[in-house]
């Protein structure tokens, strides 16, 4: 799967995958006695997993996109059937690579909200690099940097900026619990 470039291209990609792979997934879920909402939930989680695997270069190339998505969806459905619940499957199936290694901070939601607003550009650059795993050259083009060198410098500045925000947040929290 060609991983995205821009928001619009990601949307095009998701549209294509939806059209080709949702019908077989919906057919499977219906056959298993699930509802339309079940099919939607399972498929949407499968899309996220598929995208993240593709971005990380972890797809087995011999399978078609549709077959891959159906396979993931069946796995998710099986978990739902076995557990009788379908809640946090996505995080259980394939959690964030680093989040679980760090101690969870109680104010992470607030922190993310803050970063989405005050540090949006940095979060976009960092997610293009670490989430979408796009090549530096492409990120430079997308964000209007002269070249790989200047976007790399910006990436590290952004890492420092976000880290500083986290640090301040942690210090505030320490004050709070003292």
């Amino acid at each position, binding site marked *: 799967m060609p991983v995205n470039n821009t928001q619009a291209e990601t949307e095009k990609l998701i549209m294509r995958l939806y059209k080709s792979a949702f019908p077989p997934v919906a057919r499977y879920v219906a056959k298993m006695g699930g509802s339309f909402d079940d099919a939607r939930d399972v498929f949407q989680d499968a899309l996220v997993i598929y995208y993240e695997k593709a971005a990380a270069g972890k797809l087995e190339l011999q399978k078609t996109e549709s077959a891959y998505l159906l396979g993931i969806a069946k796995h998710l459905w099986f978990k739902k059937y076995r557990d009788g619940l379908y809640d946090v499957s996505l995080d259980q199936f394939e959690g964030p690579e680093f989040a679980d290694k760090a101690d969870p901070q109680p104010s992470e939601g607030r922190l993310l909200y803050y970063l989405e607003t005050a540090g949006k550009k940095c979060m976009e650059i960092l997610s293009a690099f670490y989430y979408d795993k796009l090549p530096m050259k492409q990120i430079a083009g997308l964000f209007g940097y002269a070249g790989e060198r200047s976007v790399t410098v910006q990436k590290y500045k952004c890492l420092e900026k976000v880290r500083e925000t986290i640090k301040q947040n*942690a210090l505030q929290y320490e004050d709070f619990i003292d």
Partner: protein
Amino acid sequence: MRTLLTETQQIDEHVQGTAAPDEALLFEAKLLLDAELPLKVQWHKQTLGLVQQYGRKNLVSIIGDVHNQLFTLPQHQSFRQKILQLFR
């Protein structure tokens, strides 16, 4: 030629596991000597966790938009019918 790495680069390579063996060893030593460095590593991991959450949230929102388009817009009516009839 590789230029001297900044501390943030070193932290990132340490967390990602991409540091060259000699640099990795040097970094391990620094971790023992610099009291603030382990904290910086911790914050760095948290940064990457937040970036992951941010990226995933954005993707989930695009997926939701596509779903809404497919299940509301007139041009996707035949697709919609094909799916909905499976659940009748």
